[in-house]
């Protein structure tokens, strides 16, 4: 319904798509925070981080082989002590040690797997949380939990909450961008749910490097720019004439501006999405793989003011290693390792790491017990995620799992706790960030979640 919208309301509604008024200084627009317009007008905490890049490893990466060394597994290989009789999705067998060597890395001496040589070089900037847990052993519900804090596929995504809570910094870009190779994935993971539609994630296919292939209808196939400019001018003249005859109307006015912004977006804004504009050396550092391009684009989007970038590694649940896990990890880790580490390094060089949260993890981890001899099943009881930047302590390994790496036992961190802590760094109290819908106030963290103060600077 278009009513007489306030200026605030109007600009909010313009922010839903790829931008609107004025494209000046697009790449580095430093709009004052007072001007950044979220719907949420509740209290704010001190802001530590302005942006989030979530590197999502769908399928559930194996903490046992990457971040959570468990030498006891070797001793007890093949055994099945009572403590590992936890129900997961599938039938599991005896304990399966990791064949990968762990070495102390950085000044902090955190042990990291040989699968991740690049991450080892930046580990002093990383807060490794070894005691994550979640609440469901199957992909879709668990994925829904990490994305929205709820099992139900109808709640707003984390990114939508961030967009709602903090608004857009750059009015020309969506505040919540999803980068998903092949354009796949279920849009229900980045839905706005009951939040205003403009907070929905805008998904781009980052398997492509050409912006026109990523964004539908970005280019006109029939007219050159000057010709289309004339078309737009003629259109604007008719629209102004209509406004004159109708009278002042925020919708009519807003659409004239949105039309103009769309025209310019074709040429200017598209640059943001074009990683080919980066120096060759930088592209080499990230690695030029699809995931690397996504990481690099995420950095460019953060520079341009996008609040929340959700980046999927690969299409589908690629880290779901029910079988031949060792071989799979050897194949998959190198490019993930290189790009994720390059992102941290690059952000740090640019002085952006302090204000950017880089989060890494999947919907759960994997079991220390084997599935069919050479695979690992889903493990929601205890797994690793890491966060770099944004006021998280670097060079610490927080919490721990049991002797075999199955269940988080010390300093347990639930996905609600993680959400609460990330929001806290963004300057929002997770108990205050609510939205009234269907008769009650909803939160990202429902009735749960505690800020994990120990891992914050």
């Amino acid at each position: 319904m278009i009513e007489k919208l306030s200026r605030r309301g109007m600009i909010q509604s313009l922010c839903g798509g790829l931008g609107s008024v004025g494209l000046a200084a697009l790449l580095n627009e430093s709009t004052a925070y007072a001007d950044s317009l979220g719907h949420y007008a509740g209290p704010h905490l001190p802001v530590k981080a302005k942006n989030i890049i979530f590197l999502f490893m769908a399928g559930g990466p194996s903490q046992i082989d990457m971040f959570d060394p468990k030498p006891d597994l070797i001793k007890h290989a093949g055994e099945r002590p009572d403590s590992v009789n936890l129900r997961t999705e599938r039938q599991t067998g005896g304990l399966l040690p990791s064949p990968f060597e762990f070495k102390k890395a950085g000044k902090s001496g955190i042990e990291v797997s040989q699968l991740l040589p690049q991450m080892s070089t930046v580990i002093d900037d990383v807060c490794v949380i070894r005691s994550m847990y979640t609440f469901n052993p199957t992909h879709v519900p668990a994925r829904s939990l990490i994305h929205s804090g709820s099992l139900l596929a109808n709640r707003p995504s984390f990114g939508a909450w961030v967009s709602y809570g903090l608004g857009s910094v750059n009015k020309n870009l969506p505040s919540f961008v999803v980068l998903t190779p092949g354009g796949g994935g279920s849009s229900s993971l980045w839905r706005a749910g009951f939040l205003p539609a403009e907070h929905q994630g805008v998904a781009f296919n980052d398997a492509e490097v050409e912006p026109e292939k990523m964004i539908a209808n970005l280019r006109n196939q029939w007219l050159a720019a000057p010709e289309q400019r004339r078309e737009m001018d003629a259109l604007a003249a008719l629209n102004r004439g209509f406004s004159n005859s109708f009278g002042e109307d925020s919708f009519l006015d807003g659409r004239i501006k949105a039309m103009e912004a769309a025209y310019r977006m074709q040429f200017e804004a598209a640059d943001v999405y074009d990683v080919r504009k980066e120096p060759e050396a930088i592209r080499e550092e990230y690695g030029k793989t699809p995931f690397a391009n996504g990481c690099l684009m995420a950095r460019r989007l953060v520079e341009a003011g996008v609040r929340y970038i959700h980046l999927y590694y690969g299409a589908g649940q690629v880290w779901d290693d029910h079988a031949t896990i060792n071989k799979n990890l050897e194949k998959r880790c190198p490019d993930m390792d290189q790009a994720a580490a390059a992102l941290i390094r690059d952000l740090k060089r640019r002085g952006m790491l302090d204000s950017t949260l880089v989060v890494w993890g999947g919907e759960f981890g994997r079991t220390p017990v084997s599935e069919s001899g050479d695979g690992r099943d889903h493990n929601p009881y205890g797994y690793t995620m890491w966060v770099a930047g944004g006021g998280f302590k670097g060079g610490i390994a927080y919490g721990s799992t049991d002797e075999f790496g199955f269940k988080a036992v010390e300093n347990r961190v639930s996905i609600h706790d993680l959400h609460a802590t990330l929001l806290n760094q963004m300057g929002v109290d997770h108990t205050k960030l609510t939205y009234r819908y269907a008769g009650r106030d909803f939160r990202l963290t429902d009735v749960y979640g505690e800020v994990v103060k120990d891992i914050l600077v």
Partner: protein
Amino acid sequence: MYPVNIMSGRFPVLLLLLSTCAPIFAQEPDAAFFENKIRPVLVAKCYSCHSTKLSSPMGGLAMDSKAGLQRGSASGPVIVAGKPADSKLLQAIRYTNPQLQMPPTGKLPDSVIADFEQWIGSGAHDPRVDSAGGASPAPLKGMSIEEGRKWWAFQPVKEIAAPRVKNAAWAKNKIDSFILAQLEHTKLNPSPQASPAELVQRAYIDLVGYKPSFDEEQVYVNDHSPRAYENLIDKLLTSPHYGERWGRHWMDVARFAEDNPTGEATNPGYPVAWRYRDWIIDAINADMPYDRFVKLQLAADEMPGVAHDDLRALGYIGAAPIYHKDQRLSYDVIYGFMTDDWDERVDAVSRGILGMTVACARCHDHKFDPIPTKDYYALMGVFASTMRAERPTFEVDPKVEERFLWIQRRLFDLRYSADLLTNEASTVVGAKERVDKWKAEIESLHQEMEGLRGQYPQLTQHLERFWTFPPPRQPGAAGGGGGARRANANVASSEPFFNSVYDAAQFADGSDAHYTFINYKPGEAREIPVMPHGSVTAAGADEPRHFLTVLSKDDSTFHHGSGRAEFADRVFRDGAPLTARVIVNRVWAWHFGKGLVATPSDFGTQGEKPTHPQLLDDLSARFIAHGWSLKWLNREIMLSAAYRQSSHPRADGEAADSVNALIWRMNPRRLDIESYRDSLLRAAGKLSEDMHGPSEEADSLTNVRRTVYARVSRARTNQLLREYDFPDPIQTSAARDLTVTSLQQLFLMNSAWVHNLSSTLASSVDSESDPHIKIRDLYRKILSRDPSAHEMELAMAYLDRPADPEAKQSPIEQYAQILLSTNEEIFWP
């Protein structure tokens, strides 16, 4: 969504109401500790037996009030502040005394016991504030049933004498007296009547969902008879396209869609859900009384004398969203998902039809409205006794059909399970034995169905995919593909079935620790226990199925089957005043762009109050008196002077009432995606008049059908629909939240879809040699009017310039695209 709240300057009010459902963590650490660590445990583990709400709390101990906890049990205090060792409560939860172990369902985790020890040790601070009367039974934290019965929205509706107004000549019908009285009170004048061109556009968009053509507009503008406007409305109300427009409105409320949010093996799409959409369109066109319209959607199969064709209405429940249930998960998890599915129905029905947020009472009594948790589980029982079923479009012997529908569900689960454990045999112990057993059962059901092939070949055929191993290689053919194969099929099917429901109690079967089936018991109903915090592991006593207590005039316990028919009856008997107000307000909002109640799906205490309560009551009473006729209501509203007002802005109106709460003008609006897409197609002469049938994607270049027939997906919203604010069909939608974005404009500027329309339009004026005529004709086709002299000059200047030899679009095509893209085209005056 209620954007109105945020944009109408009521923001401060909204803020005061924040943080209500979740526990409010107080500032002081003691209180926070209690709220965080203690209270949730008391609620989840103790209240079900130790509550003031019970007529006799166990042991005389009521723990849901501060006073009750301090007083202790019949045998003395249970807490000694500062002395955990002396506190009976701690003894009980430690399970050290075999005679005193609480909670009886199992020992609490050690960490929780430690929390209680710490809490008692530090003084057992209890920040709860008891309501007046201390521990005396205070049934609800929110509004009591008794108070609730006095709530405005539940009061009987009756016709109200029109208020006296000064400018009585302005009023065209009774609606206007109510509007004008409030305007006069604020010393605002109504706006003048809209121009004939504006009126005819407004009426076409409103009633048939697209703009009138040049000729249609001329017919009206040149009709000078005094009844011209009435005739226009009456003509449009009889158009078959009326049902396409107004049916779509209802589809927003009914969260109509043709698949499920995740579309996995156990929640595949609904390939025949389009038959439910077609039923809605037909029923609306026939002006089926609203009470019957809703009753059929809830309970067509339980009502006497219903035509078989009307069973299509049950798509309302039969094509509702469901979640994936990986049957390898435990009983608790599967049962939990089942309750989530039923919760969805409770929410859709209560907000959609009754404007009540009953689902708020899933974890605890509603915090504001008079809805106890028992009411919630009473309704959940109705849907737990209703299974989804693909029912034949043709008549079948009822006994045979009942058996067929059970076999259909059973075969689906067996086939899914057999496929799952064949492909992932290592994931469950004894997979092979299980698969063999299931395949044997599949075969036996197959043989049973073969026995029916002679009499009902289509029933047998429909299930063939379940017993065919390996699945045939032609998906799309009737019955093609295995159960799992059809899961993600993105196409509508023409099989002679519709997505419907059948009465059957559904239970999670916990008998196999490694594999959880769902048992369907056709012809049986079940009760659902009250589940504190919505947790299936904390189930209390079974709650009989019944209607909302606050609305019930007498004992409303349901006795027949699932109780859907009795529920539907109560909605229109005990709940009639509320139900009528809710639909009248929705219809008003669809006509005016916003309702008299700004929160169309929440008429509870957290919703907005009506801006014109007497008008709403009077109109609702007359709506009932006119046999719940939606067409009567459309007509009554559209014939009012209020509706006919101009939508142009006025400085005095803006100053006095910028949100137009008083209706001093018509609200100017933009077209929604359906009427926009349809109007664009119609301008190019391409819009198909064909009604009904399977769906196609909205932005397909070959789809020229009305947008109401576009495919609606919960898993992958069509990009065009999404960009233009189509509501997410995973839940009932109260109103559309229309935005203006640049992505929308890129569609007009650069899409092949719009480009094709421009080409078609340009070709259609190709035979004219005079560019003035070409432009005039384009204006007529697209904007249904002639260009002004100035507009003609602009167009000529555009066409006269030297053509760009590189351009792949002729200037006249470009101009057609310009006119299609104008604000005027997307505007609803």
